[in-house]
């Protein structure tokens, strides 16, 4: 009798996580259902059509949310009420309500959206349409297309300057950066860089633009005023063939101290002194590292490692990888919801 009861209890205990997961899904994001305050990282899993939610205090996956097909680029609205998701194979940008975890709308993004950038006005999304050689500008409030701009072949990287006046797109096959005036929606200049540019990132005041070239194996730093290349960085890791060093994601610390460059199949993140442009260190992370994001306090940097299906967490002060967390298959993008924003969302609920 006692055995039976114990077994029953064990069975219930075993079912508990499944039940909890189900109710969390029903309620929407567990992050919001759970009153425990912590920053939450949202990771898009390209092959699982889902988002993994990581609690940045415990460094554990606390929830998985189903979304559209092949989610890649993800970004929060400035007030964190919405999460925009590039559902590439559904040819749309989905809007997820952060409070409920429900998809509330699909934006007309053009075909195969991969990366995008939200303008500082919190309204205009600049979307790179990989298959159509276009950049589509979408008004997220009216949910319609404002403009489509012809760019080079296979557009990918996308960034809007901090003052919102310039948008830059990279086209992988043309190996160019395309400079777009956000008021006139005109392409006003092109910069030739090394093969297959993947990602662009403005510094805090918008005076510099960092651009990575995946096949060229380089990162350039460009003066945004005159679009001149100030510096070209190359990377070298002992024991790793140069062909495997393929820079993709670039992140700059807010204090202007470091630039972190994800080196793809080299499985390392390069730490660059953002002032002297010297490579300080190479940090070993999971396999095929592409994109990164800082925690709100800038003390941690998260990397998505596609092939190994995990997220590595870097301690920015110590420049050490402290943990790698298993997520879904082929994690691609990462966006972080700060505790304060989450508390506010909970209060409004």
């Amino acid at each position: 009798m006692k055995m039976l009861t114990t077994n029953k209890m064990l069975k219930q205990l075993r079912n508990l996580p499944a039940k909890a997961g189900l109710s969390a899904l029903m309620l929407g994001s567990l992050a919001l259902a759970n009153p425990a305050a912590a920053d939450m990282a949202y990771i898009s899993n390209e092959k699982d059509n889902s988002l993994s939610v990581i609690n940045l205090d415990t460094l554990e996956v606390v929830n998985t949310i189903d979304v559209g097909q092949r989610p890649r680029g993800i970004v929060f609205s400035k007030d964190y009420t919405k999460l925009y998701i590039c559902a590439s194979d559904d040819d749309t940008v989905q809007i997820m309500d952060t409070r409920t975890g429900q998809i509330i709308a699909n934006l007309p993004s053009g075909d195969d959206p991969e990366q995008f950038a939200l303008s500082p006005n919190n309204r205009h999304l600049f979307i790179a349409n990989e298959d159509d050689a276009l950049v589509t500008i979408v008004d997220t409030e009216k949910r319609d297309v404002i403009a489509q701009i012809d760019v080079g072949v296979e557009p990918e990287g996308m960034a809007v300057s901090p003052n919102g006046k310039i948008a830059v797109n990279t086209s992988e096959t043309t190996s160019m950066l395309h400079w777009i005036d956000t008021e006139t929606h005109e392409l006003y200049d092109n910069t030739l860089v090394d093969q297959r540019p993947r990602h662009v990132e403005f510094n805090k005041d918008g005076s510099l633009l960092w651009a990575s070239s995946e096949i060229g194996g380089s990162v350039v730093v460009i003066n945004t005023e005159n679009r001149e290349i100030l510096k070209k960085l190359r990377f070298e890791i002992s024991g790793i063939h140069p062909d495997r060093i393929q820079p993709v994601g670039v992140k700059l610390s807010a204090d202007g101290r470091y630039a972190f460059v994800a080196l793809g199949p080299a499985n390392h993140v390069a730490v660059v002194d953002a002032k002297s442009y010297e490579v300080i260190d190479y940090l070993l992370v999971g396999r095929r590292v592409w994109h990164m994001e800082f925690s709100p306090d800038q003390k941690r940097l998260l990397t998505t490692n596609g092939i190994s299906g995990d997220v590595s967490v870097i301690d920015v002060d110590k420049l050490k990888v402290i943990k790698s967390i298993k997520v879904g298959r082929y994690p691609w993008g990462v966006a972080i919801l700060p505790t304060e924003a989450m508390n506010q969302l909970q209060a409004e609920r």
Partner: protein
Amino acid sequence: MNAPIKIRKHQGGISRYWRTFVGISQRELLRFVQQRTRFLSALIRPLLWLVVFAAGFRAVLGVSIMPPYGTYITYQVYIAPGLVAMILLFNAMQSALSMVYDREMGSMKVLLTSPPPRSFLLISKLVANALVSLPQVMVFLLIALLVDVDPPLIGYLAVLPAALLVSVMLGAIGLFISTFIRQLENFAGVMNFVIFPMFFLSSALYPLWKMQEAGILLHTVCQLNPFTYGVELIRFSLYGELDSHSLMVVSGITLAFLTLAIISFDPQRGMKSSGKPVPKA
């Protein structure tokens, strides 16, 4: 009147054991200090593995996430605990060799004339040898910092008892083997048939899952090798964690081999006479 005498006897007993232990330890330490080349060679061997061997494997192996590591590690980081165990293994076998030497030279007789029981003398010798190994382990770990093997601070403390226990286990195995060696010259065989298989067929150089990919038989042999558990005990302790499974295996093996070694220890074996006292005519 009787009570004080009893107490004195008791104190005398403990201090006698302590004096014996200190004496044996001092002898080991003296031997260690006087042989500086031994200290250097004990360090150079694992350092060569760490710097030369591991550097070439940096990209090839790709050690993935596994306990006690929370993230991806370089090969240097992976093999460091195995190389710590390598230091202990060579020292333990060297200690066993010195036991054979002592037996041949007759100084073992002097040691065995001390009043404490033989088992205490042998255990003291193993513990003394283990204690002498610890500074070598520490120096190795400090040098390993240069190639980014940087475990947490707590690990440097936690590794000491683990290394001590593993050293006593390896010493007990060495002692047991030495009871079968008649002459010093046979010791080269020990190198070939004990040290190398023990080191290579363990988790020191490759994780067990990698061995499993290479073959089931190889994996099984590695699992049966007590050295594997010694390496894992050191690996976890170096990262401030306790691998209780390895601790149990290492403790069990230590106890078993100590018992076997003490039972089969024969100070007469290998002496210049045929190994047994010559009966008087």
